[in-house]
């Protein structure tokens, strides 16, 4: 399966709070950011943690503006996120 995203793409993280292990940090949910790189392909941690079969899929470094994550701050945070956590975002949405 080809990668869904590439460097430069705008993406939005999911908002679901799953009842199991996940590697989508709570502070980075429901936020728009920009893919800066693909960081390899790995089975989904959420599935591995539950002993489920999982095929490798893309993992991305996604850059967020601190203002979009926390409502303040002038720094950036790059979070490494599995493809499953991301949806395309057309344009930046400021909260």
């Amino acid at each position: 399966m080809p990668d869904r995203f590439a460097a430069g793409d705008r993406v939005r993280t999911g908002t679901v709070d799953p009842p199991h292990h996940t590697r989508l940090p709570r502070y980075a949910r429901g936020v728009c950011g920009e893919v800066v790189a693909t960081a390899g392909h790995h089975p989904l941690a959420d599935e591995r943690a539950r002993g489920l079969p999982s095929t490798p899929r893309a993992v991305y470094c996604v850059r967020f503006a601190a203002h979009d994550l926390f409502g303040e701050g002038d720094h950036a945070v790059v979070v490494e996120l599995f493809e499953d956590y991301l949806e395309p975002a057309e344009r930046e949405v400021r909260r």
Partner: protein
Amino acid sequence: MSATHDATHDEAPIAARVRHVEALLEQRGWLAPGEVDERIDALAAGGSPANGAAIVARAWVDPGFRARLLADANTAIGELGLSMAGGLQEQQLIVVANGPDEHHVVVCTLCSCYPIALLGPSPGWYKSEAYRSRVVREPRAVLREFGLELPASTRITVWDASAESRYMVLPRRPAGTDDLDEGRLAALVTRKGLIGTAAV
């Protein structure tokens, strides 16, 4: 939090639970006695901040190596006889370079992911809830508590090792070190510099 103060952990209940699970696994023959310690020893074997420092010093004296390191760190560190393949599988290494107007700092907000092979065992503060929760939100204030005062014009990027890769910072070469050879340059590099909580 201060740079010298290790966080206190309330780890006793977790340690007891881990021992219990280990005992059950051993009873069922799924785990050999002492196997966990052996695996941890194997993972940590040879792991030292001296490895990260050697990488940094080479990058300071060899622009070609620096470019290869930033493009494909796993392959580049092989030139120094180093590897990220010490665990069950090779981990991807991403090296991020500080610049005149840019500073990087590494955290794992979800647990304590960290390139043990290149930095040795992680310091207590790296695993503390205070560091993990605060550095993504207010890195400038946290770095100030570590004694690193950055100009307001310096852009800060925090790297959250939230999934599979491991991250290391390439600090800037200090001024006035033109005469130092690679070995003496490496001696300037600290573990905090490789995490990004110190300038070098």
